[in-house]
C-alpha cells in the first residue's frame, strides 16, 4: 500500500476533514438541478406541493444524506465489497425474476421497508463498482488479452438477460451502454468494439429469423416504430413534440403550459417532465437545465481523470456515463429522436428509484473526489487494509 503526499497520505483522516473536501460546488449544482425538478412538480400538480413536489423534496433530502455518507466512506471499502454488492444485487434481481415468474406478470420491485426499489436500478451502480474493481486489478497487458475480457463480459450479460426479460428495455440498454463505456475507458482495443459491433449486426438478422418468436418480433417492431401505435406510445410522442414545440423561445410561463395541464401530455411528472419544462420555459429553460447537466457531467469527468487510483477513475467514468445516459435517452425520447423507453430525467422526474440510483452514484463520485490522491495497488484490491 503506497501513500503519497496530501490529505490521505495519513493512515487516519477524520470525517470532518473529508467533509471539508467534499466537492461542494458539485453539491450546489445538483441541488439547483433538483430544485428545477421541484418547481416543475409543483406546476404539474397545478400549483401544489402535494402530491409530488413535497415527497420529492423529502426523498432528495434523505438521498443527500445517504450520498454524503457514501462519499466519506473510505473508497477501499467500496473496492473491497464491489463483488459482494454485485452478487447481492444479482440475487435480488433473480428473486424478482422468480417472483415475477411465479406471480402475475412482470414485477420489478422489491420492498426495502420504507422504500421500494428496483434491483435493476441498483444493478447500474453494482455493475460500475464490479467492473471498476475487475479492471482495476488488470494491467494494460491483461486488458489486451481476450480471455481477460470474458469474465466481465459474463458479468454484464447475466443481469442484462435478466432485466430484458422483465421486460425493461431502457434499463438493459443503459446497463449495456454504461458497461461498454467502462470497457472502453479501461483501454480495451478499439478494433474489438468494432468487431463486436459488426458481429452484433450480423447476428441480429440471424436471431430475427431463427430465435425470436412472432410476438417478440412484434414487440421489437412496435418499439422501433412507435408511430405505428398512434394511440399508444406514438400518441405520446406526438403530444410531447406539440407541447415542446409550442413552448417557443421563452415558453408559456410557469404553470401556464396548456398542453401539460390539460393532460394532453402523458406522464408529465415522470418521463415527460422535460417536455413540460420546455413548454413553460421554452428553449431558454430547456437549455438552462441542459447546461446544469453539462456542468455536472464536466465535473464528473474532471473528478474521474483527477483520481490517482484506477478504481476511482473507472467508478467516476461509470457513474458519469450512467448519468449521461439517463439524460440523453430521456430528452431524446421526448423530442422524438429515439423510440419511447421508460427512462426518467435524473434529479428532475418524480420517482424515488432513479433519484436513489443517481445520488448513490454521485456519492461514489464524490468519494472518488475525496480520495483522489490515494493510490491503490493493482494486486491489493482491498483485501488487506
Amino acid at each position, binding site marked *: 500500500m503506497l501513500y503519497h503526499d496530501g490529505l490521505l497520505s495519513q493512515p487516519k483522516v477524520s470525517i470532518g476533514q473529508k467533509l471539508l473536501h467534499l466537492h461542494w460546488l458539485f453539491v450546489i449544482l445538483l441541488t439547483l438541478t433538483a430544485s428545477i425538478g421541484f418547481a416543475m412538480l409543483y406546476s404539474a400538480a397545478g400549483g401544489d406541493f402535494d402530491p409530488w413536489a413535497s415527497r420529492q423534496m423529502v426523498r432528495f433530502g434523505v438521498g443527500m444524506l445517504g450520498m454524503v455518507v457514501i462519499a466519506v466512506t473510505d473508497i477501499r471499502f467500496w473496492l473491497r465489497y464491489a463483488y459482494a454488492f454485485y452478487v447481492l444485487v444479482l440475487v435480488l434481481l433473480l428473486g424478482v425474476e422468480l417472483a415475477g415468474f411465479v406471480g402475475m406478470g412482470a414485477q420489478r420491485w422489491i420492498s426495502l421497508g420504507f422504500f421500494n426499489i428496483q434491483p435493476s436500478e441498483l444493478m447500474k451502480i453494482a455493475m460500475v463498482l464490479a467492473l471498476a474493481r475487475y479492471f482495476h486489478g488488470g494491467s494494460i497487458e491483461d486488458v489486451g488479452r481476450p480471455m481477460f475480457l470474458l469474465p466481465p463480459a459474463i458479468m454484464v450479460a447475466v443481469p442484462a438477460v435478466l432485466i430484458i426479460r422483465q421486460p425493461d428495455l431502457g434499463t438493459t440498454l443503459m446497463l449495456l451502454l454504461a458497461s461498454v463505456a467502462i470497457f472502453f475507458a479501461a483501454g480495451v482495443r478499439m478494433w474489438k468494439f468494432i468487431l463486436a459491433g459488426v458481429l452484433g449486426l450480423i447476428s441480429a438478422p440471424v436471431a430475427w429469423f431463427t430465435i425470436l418468436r412472432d410476438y417478440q418480433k412484434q414487440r421489437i417492431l412496435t418499439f422501433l416504430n412507435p408511430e405505428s401505435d398512434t394511440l399508444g406510445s406514438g400518441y405520446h410522442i406526438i403530444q410531447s413534440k406539440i407541447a*415542446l414545440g409550442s413552448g417557443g423561445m421563452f415558453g408559456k410561463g410557469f404553470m401556464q403550459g396548456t398542453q401539460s395541464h390539460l393532460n394532453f401530455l402523458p406522464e408529465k411528472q415522470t418521463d415527460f417532465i422535460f417536455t413540460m419544462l420546455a413548454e413553460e420555459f421554452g428553449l431558454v429553460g430547456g437549455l438552462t437545465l*441542459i447546461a446544469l447537466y453539462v456542468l455536472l457531467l464536466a465535473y464528473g469527468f474532471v473528478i474521474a481523470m483527477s483520481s490517482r487510483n484506477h478504481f476511482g477513475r473507472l467508478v467516476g467514468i461509470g457513474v458519469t456515463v450512467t448519468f449521461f445516459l439517463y439524460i440523453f435517452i430521456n*430528452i431524446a425520447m421526448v423530442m422524438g429522436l429515439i423510440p419511447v423507453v421508460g427512462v426518467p430525467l435524473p434529479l428532475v422526474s418524480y420517482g424515488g428509484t432513479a433519484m436513489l440510483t443517481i445520488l448513490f452514484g454521485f456519492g461514489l463520485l464524490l468519494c472518488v473526489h475525496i480520495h483522489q490522491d490515494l493510490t491503490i495497488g493493482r494486486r491489493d484490491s482491498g483485501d488487506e487494509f
Partner: protein
Amino acid sequence: MHRDSERHKLFSRRALMLGGGQAALLSVLAGRMYYLQVVESERYVTLADENRINFRLLPPPRGRIVDRHGKPMADNQQNYRVVIIPEQAGDVERTLDLLSLIVPLSGGERRRIAREVKRKRAFVPITVRENLDWSEVARIEVNTPDLPGVLIDVGQSRNYAMGAETAHVLGYVAAVSEKDLTGDPLLELPGFRIGKAGVEKIYDLSLRGSGGSSQVEVNALGRVIRELNRQEGQPGNEVRLTIDAELQHFITERLGNESATVVVVDVHTGEILSLVSSPSFDPNSFNTGLSQAEWESLISNPKAPLTNKAIVGQYAPGSTFKPVVALAGLEKGVITADTKINCAGSTKLGNAEFHCWKKGGHGVLDLQGAIEHSCDVYFYDVARRTGIERIAAMARRFGLGDRLGLDLPGEKPGLVPSNKWKLGAIGSPWQLGETLIAGIGQGYILTTPLQLAVMTARLANGGRAVTPRLTMDKVTETGLEPYPDEEAVSLGVTPEHLSVVLKGMDDVVNSPTGTARRSRITEPQWRMAGKTGTVQVRRISKAERETGVLKNEDLPWKERDHALFVGYAPVDSPRFAVSVVVEHGGGGSSTAAPIARDVLHETQRLAALRPTPGRQEARKSNTSDKGGKV
C-alpha cells in the same frame, strides 16, 4: 507506478473521447430543441391550439312569426329533456331504474341508452327522453339527490300556436337534410332545424339569424375546462305577417272539412289577410318527426292536406272570369255597356252547339245583366267578337297566367291560353270554339285561388296592379325594411268600362234577381259584390244532356263541380277582396258565395274592431276612404 501512469494516460485519452462524444450528443439535443422550439415553433403553436381549443357554435333563437296585430303564430318553446351523464351516474342501470319511476322507459329506450353509454365517452350527456312535461321536470328536479348524473337540459323547439290553421302559410321546420347544406356551419349542428315550407322556408335566412360561437378549452379527453371567449349570435328577425290570425281561425272553422281555399287580400296594398287551404296538417308534429302511419294518412288523403291549394291548385275560373272578358270586349269596342244579346239557352258555331247554364235561356240582356245572371250565351258572343288574344292580354293585366311573386314557395303560374301557346304546347292552331269556351272561363284556362283574389282586388281598386304579399315589412337578407309607400300602378282600364262590370258584380249579390242574392251582406256599409262560378270537372256528354244532366248530389265527390266565388267589400269603397274555391263543392252560388259572405263580413268586422296600426292604414284613410270605415 510507471505502469499506472501509462494506464492513466490511456484512460484520460479514452475519457476525453467519451466526453467529446457526450458533448456531441448533447449538442444534437440542443439543436433539436432549437429546431422544434424556434424553427418549427409556429406550426406547433397552431397544433397546440387546435389540440386544446374547441369552437362551439351557439344556435341563435329563431325569429318569431307574428300576425298583423303582433300575435305570435310561430315561436320557440323550451324543450325540456332529461339527460344522463354516465360518469356522474356511476351505476347507470340503477339510476335508470329509479328514473323509470318518474318517466317510464320502454325496453327499447333502455337498449338505446345502453348502446349510447357504451359508444360515447363517459362525460358526454346522453338524452334519455325529450319533450318532458312540466310535472315530469318538477318531479325529476325534486328527486335529483337520488338520481346521480341525471340532468334536465333545456333546448328550443318551434311551436305553432295555431297548428293546422296556419300550416300552409307558415310551413314548418324540420331537420336539415344533405341537400340543404350550404356551408353555414349552423346547419351541421345536431338537432338544428330549418324552414322546409311556407314562410319558414322562404324567409329562412332572415328567421335563422346567425350563430354565435364559444371558444372553450378542452383537455385531452375533450372535457370542457373553461370558456375562453364567447361571441353572441344574432337572433333571427321577427317577421310580421299581413295575416290576421283571428280571421284565419274564423275561416278555417268556417270551411270545416271541405277541400277548399279562401284568400283574402287588401285591394289597395295587396296584403294577404288570410290564406287558407283546407284541410290542413299540424306543423308541430313535423318538428319531432312524423310516424309512418301519420305520414301515410296525410299523403293518401284525396283532399291533399299537405298541398297549399291556394297557390298550387290550378282551377278553371269559370264564370268568375266573365268580368275580365267583358273588359276585353269593352276595350276592343266590340260591345258597349248597352250591347244587348238574346240568350235562347244555346248558341251555334258551325255544327257545334254551346249551351247556357240556364236551359231555357235568359232572353235579352245587356252587359250588366249578363254579369248579374252569369249568362253564358252573352259571353260566348263577347268572346267570339273579342278574340282569344285580346282576352288573354286582359287576363294577364289582371294577374292571371303567371306567378304573382307572393312570398311563399311553390306558387303555380296558372295558364292563360293563346294561339301561340296552343301551337307550342299542343301543336295545333287555335279553334274559334275554344275562344267561346274561354269566354266563360272554361277550357284550357287555369287560375289559382290567389290569382282569383288578386284579379278581384284589381277590379275592385279601380284597375291598379296591386301585388300580393304576406309580410308587413320587406324581408331582406340584412333585416327588414318598409315597403315603398306608393299606390300600385294603373292597369290602364277605362273607368267607365270598369264601373259597368263592378255594377254587374254588385247586382250579382245585391239585385233581387242576382245569382248570389241569398248570400248578400245586410249591413249597408259592409255590402259585398262578387261573381259566382261553377266549374265542370267532367265532360258532359250529349246523351246525358238530352236525358238530363245529373245533379251534383247524385255524383261521386270527385266528379262534382268546383264551386267558386270572387267578391269584394264594401261595395261603395272597396277594401277587401276574397276568392273562395270549394273543390267539388257544387254550385258557386250555393256553396262558395255563403262562405265568401261570412268571410268578408268577418274581415270587415275585425278591421272595424282593430284597425291595423301602421302607415298603410294611415295612407288609405287619407286618400281613398270615403267613410267606408266604421
